[in-house]
């Protein structure tokens, strides 16, 4: 098993295989993060592509500072999302084909889609920072330290934000459930 550091060093030396491996490892996570953050599928697709093209162009400037490579990629994605959100109002993400099918039955997939639809609609009612922390912590599964690095905040601030984000999400989900009844 090759270490991430040596993989990144090879990619910095324009090793196509190494860069492709990094791309495959991180593509879905970056897409998921952006999709949840901006709530627009078409834009999330364009932005995910752009994140990797930017990474390809600027990988020579990446320096090892004891932080995983994924934090650097998420940081690029974070900057792009911030730019996007400044410019545009959010719209709901169409969910067709946006859910992993794996070996699930059509009924399970349909339920999964419904859950995600509810969740996405609820997250769109959170503040941008709350949505970002939910996305990075629970769908991208990053550590508090990584989230703090990406968001440019202290770990304590991220923990507090995580708390308020879950409380807000719970409240929104309950409201949506009650409206559905």
């Amino acid at each position, binding site marked *: 098993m090759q270490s991430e550091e040596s993989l990144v060093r090879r990619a910095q030396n*324009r090793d*196509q295989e190494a*860069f*492709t491996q990094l*791309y495959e490892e991180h*593509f*879905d996570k970056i*897409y*998921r993060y952006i*999709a*949840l953050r901006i709530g627009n*599928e078409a834009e999330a*697709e*364009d932005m*995910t*592509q*752009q994140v*990797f*093209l*930017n990474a*390809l*162009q*600027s990988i*020579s*400037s990446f*320096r090892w500072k004891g932080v995983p490579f994924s934090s650097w990629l998420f*940081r*690029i994605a974070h*900057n*792009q999302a911030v*730019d996007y959100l400044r*410019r545009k109002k959010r719209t709901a993400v169409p969910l067709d*084909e*946006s*859910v*992993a099918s794996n070996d699930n039955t059509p009924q399970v997939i349909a339920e*999964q889609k419904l*859950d*995600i639809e509810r*969740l*996405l609609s609820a*997250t769109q009612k959170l503040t941008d920072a709350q949505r970002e922390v*939910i*996305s990075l*912590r*629970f*769908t*991208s*599964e990053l550590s*508090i330290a990584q989230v703090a690095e990406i968001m440019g905040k202290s770990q*304590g601030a991220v*923990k*507090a934000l*995580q*708390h308020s984000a*879950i*409380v807000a*999400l*719970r409240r929104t*989900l309950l409201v949506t459930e009650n409206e559905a009844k």
Partner: protein
Amino acid sequence: MKQNKEFDNILDECLERLLVRGETIEQCIQRYPEQAAQLKPLLETALAAKKASAIQPRAEFKARARYQFRSALQEAATPKRRPFFGWLPRWATVVTIVLIVLLAGGGTVAAASNSMPDSLLYPVKLATERVQLMLTPSQMGKIRLCARLADRRVAEIIYMADKGDVHQVELITQRLDERLATLAVLASALEAEEESPVLLAPSAEEAMPSAEDRGASDWANNRAELRVTVADYAASNQAALRAALEEVPEPVRAALLQAIAVSEAGYQEALEALD
């Protein structure tokens, strides 16, 4: 306040156990019976939020993106066409530029310094810059020059973006990235130079500041000034690029957004190196 902080820590630990180590909600809250009532609904919500990790990119999009990325990767790996003067060894480039300056009385180089990428004189501008960088003796001077050159690149990006030239915007963005990366590397080297005198620090009994101390203080002031200069360039260039985004033709927007991302990351890295 302290209680809130404590609860934030407990919640975070439970989330780690629940989401990373695979414990159940019951196992998590058993550890904190006093906070159980408050923790349980929050952990349930976190589990619900985790369901979003089933979101996947569409298969067609993934295939298209992979193809486009591999094309870009191949293009990046292909040896680039040698630039103007690129066929000459570095020393010969210096001599050539000096000759141009002498023969043309500096007029050509002066004219070239204001040229834009669509001008015939632009390659002379780039070659002159390379020579300037080589001939600048101090690290501080080189950093200042890099900051000015990066500023020029941003002006060129905006100029070419206005003209709708996607290819040129991408090319100059790459040059901007290289220039800012050089700036960051030079600034990191400054750090190393700065640290070495500490190892040879004079004894504490020397109450009066020595010439060396005064030199160190001047050096620190210069460094601080340099950081302010780079920060000013970063702020004004980010603002200029963002303002341009509203004006440029649609096809060039993606390339300009990329330039913004590169410039933001590059300046940030340079400023961190100067911290």
